[in-house]
């Protein structure tokens, strides 16, 4: 269970440079695709691989590519989503810092498959230092003939530009990203039309995550079927997980989908277990996915061992499951307060709401206010039901999924940790100290296993 397709050479000295990257087999996928395959054949391999978008939603990449409209005479674009702002997620940064050419290679092969002659990497402004690394890699690739006019003498042309953002989580949402790339505020667009029909500059556009595009390289090199042999069920291939929170070994790990959750969090190959206390809860896929108690992370409600796959993590729906999301994994030890963390999550979404839809704009504001008073020992019991009511009214009633993303952490925290919220109402003085559970961890009343 240790095959690496993306990070195999992560520790090779000089792998960020073209020479070493090429010596390790880099740019083979470009040679193979441009010289021996048709664009349709590349799309076919991606379909066979079962690759699903690594940005968070897990939508099948091959299917997304086949939706791309192809009106004659209209340019098509590939836009790589390097906005990486989902709290807990830092895998794309690691990949781009370590092996920038892997992304550039994946973009050339993917752009060829999509018939795009201009591609952009939209990278969050805070990653300015990473944008320099990418620009250097692009210059190297262009000088070596992998980019520009008539690549490898095949008549295929491609330019790649790096575009920096300026600080806005919402610009990770693909239509907000396109607005921002067009020089506007990052307000999500109403869909349809989808970017595949009307995207950048009103032209057909594919937006994919950094890791998704990088995965196209091994898929083209080894074939989609080889890729699909890794994993379990509809969760094929490998996934980068950025692990943080109260674990012993934080970092970016490439796992074969299907590793057991227990192994992932406790084995020294990955997270290495808890940092000296006891685990309390886990957020496995970035702050937008439901938080689950540690026991429910390890086992499903039916008592089955949970696996690191899209399906297993969401087993039980929102009642007892969560989601793989972006792979922004963080774990809580028993010194942490769930009410405080939920308040912090909500403060984030309130700050990042673009303000277009009232349920999101007003709802996040109200939830933050109520959570703030609960956390500071000034809440009432009715506040818990009020919170539940607000989050329920946001979910599904907004232009973009940020509204849902703001609702789910609140709903799941109340669902699984309601007694901790009640504790805050009953013991206002105890929770005044921001580290109230450090000396005396909160003990949850165990719930019946079946739901």
């Amino acid at each position, binding site marked *: 269970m240790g095959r690496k397709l993306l990070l195999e050479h992560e520790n090779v000295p000089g792998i960020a440079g073209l020479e070493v990257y090429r010596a390790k087999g880099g740019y083979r996928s470009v040679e193979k695709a441009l010289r021996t395959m048709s664009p349709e054949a590349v799309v076919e391999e991606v379909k066979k691989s079962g690759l699903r978008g690594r940005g968070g939603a897990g939508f099948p990449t091959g299917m997304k590519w086949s939706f791309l409209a192809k009106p004659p005479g209209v340019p098509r674009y590939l836009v790589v989503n390097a906005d990486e702002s989902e709290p807990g997620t830092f895998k794309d940064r690691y990949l781009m810092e370590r092996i920038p050419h892997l992304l550039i290679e994946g973009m050339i092969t993917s752009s060829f498959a999509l018939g795009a002659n201009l591609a952009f990497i939209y990278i969050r402004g805070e990653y300015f230092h990473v944008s320099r690394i990418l620009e250097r890699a692009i210059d190297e690739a262009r000088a070596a003939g992998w980019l520009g006019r008539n690549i490898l003498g095949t008549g295929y042309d491609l330019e790649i530009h790096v575009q920096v953002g*300026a600080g806005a989580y919402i610009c990770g949402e693909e239509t907000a990203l396109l607005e921002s790339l067009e020089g506007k505020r990052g307000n999500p667009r109403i869909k349809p039309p989808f970017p595949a029909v009307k995207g950048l500059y009103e032209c057909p556009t594919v937006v994919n995550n950094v890791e998704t595009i990088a995965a196209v390289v091994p898929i083209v090199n080894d074939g989609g079927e080889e890729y699909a042999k890794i994993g379990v069920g509809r969760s094929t291939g490998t996934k980068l997980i950025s692990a943080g929170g109260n674990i012993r070994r934080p970092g970016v790990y490439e796992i074969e989908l299907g590793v057991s959750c227990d192994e992932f969090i406790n084995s020294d190959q990955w997270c290495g277990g808890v940092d000296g206390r006891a685990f309390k809860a886990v957020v496995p896929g970035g702050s937008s996915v439901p938080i689950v108690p540690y026991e429910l992370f390890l086992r499903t409600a039916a008592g089955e061992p949970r696996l690191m796959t899209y399906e297993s993590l969401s087993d039980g729906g929102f009642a007892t499951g969560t989601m793989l999301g972006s792979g922004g994994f963080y774990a809580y030890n028993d010194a942490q307060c769930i009410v405080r963390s939920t308040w912090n999550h909500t403060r984030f979404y309130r700050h990042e709401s673009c303000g277009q839809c009232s349920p999101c704009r007003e709802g996040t504001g109200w939830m933050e206010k109520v959570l703030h008073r609960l956390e500071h020992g000034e809440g009432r019991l009715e506040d818990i039901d009020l919170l539940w009511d607000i989050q329920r009214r946001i979910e599904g009633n907004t232009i973009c999924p940020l509204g849902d993303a703001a609702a789910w952490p609140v709903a799941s925290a109340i669902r699984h940790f309601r007694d901790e919220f009640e504790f805050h109402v009953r013991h206002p003085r105890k929770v005044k100290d921001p580290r109230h559970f450090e000396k005396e961890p909160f003990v949850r009343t165990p719930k019946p296993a079946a739901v």
Partner: protein
Amino acid sequence: MGATLKAVTTTEGVAPFAFSEQALAECRAIMARYPEGRSKSALIPILHIAQAGNDGWLSVPAMDAVAALMGLQPIEVYEVASFYSMFNLRPVGRHVLEICRTTPCMLRGGDALIAHAEKRLGIHVGETTRDGLFTLKAVECLGSCGTAPMLQCGAKYHEDLTPEAFDALIEQLRSTALRSNYTDR
């Protein structure tokens, strides 16, 4: 969304702004990389260049110069500048310290680092020290959660911070005459 500090919306008492020759050349090169008629796409990259050339903030004269250069209405520039958190719409210190306050950092001591920074610098989040050297900002997840707590200053990330490491950074920055800009190479 939006800048954390209140915007200065007047030109009164505000220094005039002009791009340097080098900055102008860079801006023109950026505008040329989009398809014909789509050079508005260059707005955010050019605002970064303007901010770096204007003591780290976007004054009205600086934004108006961007509008003139790009052939945009000033409002098209203001509405974008005010949307993104990296654009400062009022003067800031020579070094802007942006500490991450989001949940994964909080789990690893982000809050404690902010409290320490406020005490050490004698200011609150959102304020600038009297000597004009430091502005303290609390920002959202910077994609560095595994090396938390952390802060960003200009283009540089400072990770795995302890109170001691923070103090050492302050001392080092104190003796750095150059402003820390996002665009630093």
